[in-house]
């Protein structure tokens, strides 16, 4: 499996190659700091400054695709960092940029109309830039030190973004999130320390060769996984998620649910594939957690009174799908992994796009009606078809109905579970579908109520409508054209 992660790509010797990757990492941060010169309520600096990160990504993609993957060694004194990029990395980078861009384009109008001058708006762009840079580092990193740095920066940036509203509830939830994130990173660091102590190396490709099963390996994997799954809001470590989203700014929520939890998940999956690729029994445990998460998250979302909570808890459920994919990748036959591999990444992308779109659409609904409760939407379908439509399109992908990317991913997951003979996983997927149908259509049921009292509707600015719709549509259309991104995951020579 580790060749699929691109860890076996030989490093190129010329140091000139580093330019593209370094600028890719630095550009978001630099641009974020630059953008903070203007108030975030202006949209043109965002549009202008976000061009550079995209250009750097295009440059990197050009290099990487030409060579079918690329790796870099960065010498820092006695320390060597390993970075690499392959098709998967590029897709994740692209996903990060797309979601981040949509959220950034949504933010100015949102801040102007909904927030006014409250909160620490100056910090929005630098923190978002930092988040983007650290995520890019996570996707690129091939050694534990880089991963650790990326993980920590991402965590701190995420906490910072959550705190921006500055209200009591946001601060209280943010404090809780901060403490959890810090504990998670301690567990991660402890795991890394044990690995480094035992095998004296940090690069993943090397560890994959030398790591031997034993108590040290298991303790460190347990610690690493616990820390990462806590940050990924995997069941049963998910309780912090909804309160954090309840008070955060909408574009920040979108960014967080779409990308931050995925960063931790990616690291966890990568470490398992490197360290314990055959640990089927342990993977069952992870899968069982995932299955429980699917059901429990669905139930929580179903019972939620507030709109944002519905969306937030559905993340728990969707992360559960990812964990199911996770468990299908560890210790199963090659034909299963070939399918599950594509299923996992497609599910990740589908959820990112759909969830970000859904958060933005939810923000529009709340903005327009002034109601944060699901019941407050009564009769909304008469007045806000577009926001509701975006919500609905994103929901199609979350439920996994065709022709969305969520559906195609679920199809692949079902395929892989069936081929592996994991019947319970299929049951979890089926239950998840029904439950997500239940919580989504509960929202819609209210919106179709005809004899509700007319609400005081505010007009939603067009840019807010547009970017919610675009994200939702992209999650829908990705389902039909999934072959294009997924073909990047396969080695160029053909064959799985």
């Amino acid at each position, binding site marked *: 499996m580790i060749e699929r992660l691109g860890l076996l790509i030989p490093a190129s010797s010329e140091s000139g190659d580093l330019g593209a990757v370094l600028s890719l990492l630095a550009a978001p941060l630099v641009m974020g700091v630059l953008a903070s010169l203007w108030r975030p309520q202006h949209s043109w600096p965002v549009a202008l400054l976000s061009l550079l990160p995209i250009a750097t990504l295009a440059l990197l993609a050009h290099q990487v695709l030409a060579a079918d993957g690329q790796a870099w060694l960065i010498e820092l004194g006695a320390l060597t960092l390993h970075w690499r990029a392959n098709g998967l990395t590029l897709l994740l980078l692209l996903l990060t940029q797309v979601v981040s861009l949509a959220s950034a384009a949504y933010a100015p109008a949102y801040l102007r109309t909904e927030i006014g001058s409250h909160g620490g708006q100056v910090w929005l762009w630098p923190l978002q830039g930092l988040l983007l840079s650290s995520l890019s580092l996570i996707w690129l990193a091939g050694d534990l030190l880089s991963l650790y740095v990326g993980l920590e920066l991402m965590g701190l940036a995420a906490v910072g973004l959550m*705190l921006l509203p500055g209200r009591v509830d946001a601060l209280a939830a943010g404090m*809780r999130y901060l403490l959890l994130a810090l504990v998670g990173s301690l567990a991660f660091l*402890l795991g890394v*320390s044990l690995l*480094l102590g035992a095998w004296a*190396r940090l690069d993943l490709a090397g560890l994959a060769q030398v790591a031997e099963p034993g108590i040290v390996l298991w*303790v460190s994997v*347990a610690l690493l996984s616990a820390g990462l799954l806590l940050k990924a809001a995997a069941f049963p470590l998910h309780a912090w998620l909804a309160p954090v989203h309840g008070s955060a700014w909408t574009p920040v929520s979108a960014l967080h649910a779409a990308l931050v939890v995925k960063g931790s998940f990616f690291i966890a999956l990568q470490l398992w594939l490197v360290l314990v690729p055959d640990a089927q029994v342990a993977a069952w445990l992870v899968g069982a957690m995932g299955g429980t998460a699917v059901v429990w998250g669905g139930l929580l979302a179903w019972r939620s009174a507030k709109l944002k909570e519905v969306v937030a808890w559905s993340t728990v459920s969707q992360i559960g799908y990812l964990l199911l994919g996770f468990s299908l990748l560890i210790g199963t036959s090659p034909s299963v992994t070939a399918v599950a591999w594509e299923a996992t990444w497609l599910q990740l992308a589908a959820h990112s796009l759909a969830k970000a779109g859904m958060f933005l659409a939810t923000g529009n609904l709340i903005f327009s009606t002034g109601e944060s409760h699901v019941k407050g939407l009564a009769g909304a379908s008469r007045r806000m078809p577009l926001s509701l439509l975006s919500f609905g399109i994103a929901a199609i992908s979350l439920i996994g109905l065709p022709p969305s990317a969520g559906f195609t991913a679920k199809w692949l997951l079902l395929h892989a579970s069936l081929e592996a003979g994991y019947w319970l996983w299929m049951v979890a997927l089926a239950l998840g579908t029904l439950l997500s149908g239940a919580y989504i259509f509960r929202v819609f049921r209210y919106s179709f109520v005809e004899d509700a009292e007319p609400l005081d509707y505010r007009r939603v600015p067009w840019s807010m409508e547009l970017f919610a719709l675009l994200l939702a549509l992209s999650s829908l259309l990705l389902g039909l054209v999934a072959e294009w991104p997924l073909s990047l995951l396969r080695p160029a020579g053909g064959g799985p």
Partner: protein
Amino acid sequence: MPPFLDVLLALTVVALAALALVDRQLVRACSWFVAFALGVALTWLSQGFLWLALLEVVFGAALTGSFLFYSLGVRPGAVEPRGRLSRWRDPLPLTWRRGVLRLLPAVAVVIMLVMALADFGQVPGPQRLGGLGLIFLGLWAFALHRHLLRRLLAFNVIGTGIFLILMALVRDTTPAAGHGLVITGLVVALLGTALGSLLIRRLNGLDASRGSSVTLAEQGSG
């Protein structure tokens, strides 16, 4: 340095950490923490890690200490504040029952760690045992206390314990990688503490202005 001194140093560090974590008087607890950080710096020095000692003094003792004091509203000549979070005593009572119950996660993690460390096959030195002690204390305190500041202290203590174990493990093989991790960890701990301190101050300010002081700390730490 003779092993006897090493042992003494490790014991001192653990004792200081324990003091910092159990003292009901928060300002005093923070002072103990600064002393603890200085003790850790000495330990690094005794191991020959000059840079880490220096960083520990600057980041761990000076900066983290100032942030902690800042969060309490301590400055020269300050009178004791009345806000719930910045009160100089931790107002939440502790019971034995709770204290014992919260030991469990800490014990579990430490047993796991001991098993893993035993697998390395070397005779464990005082640093490693000291680190284990710190992790144990920190975990226990983290689970036990509700006060945000004390949780930040506990987090810092656990972190230091991990650094000690890490450096003890890699001293002979790959010190460079160890340095990288520890320095990153130190910076992260500092940033985390800084963010936490700012939050405590801010929560306290909102708390006082809104007058609903009872629930906030619970919300923040629940």
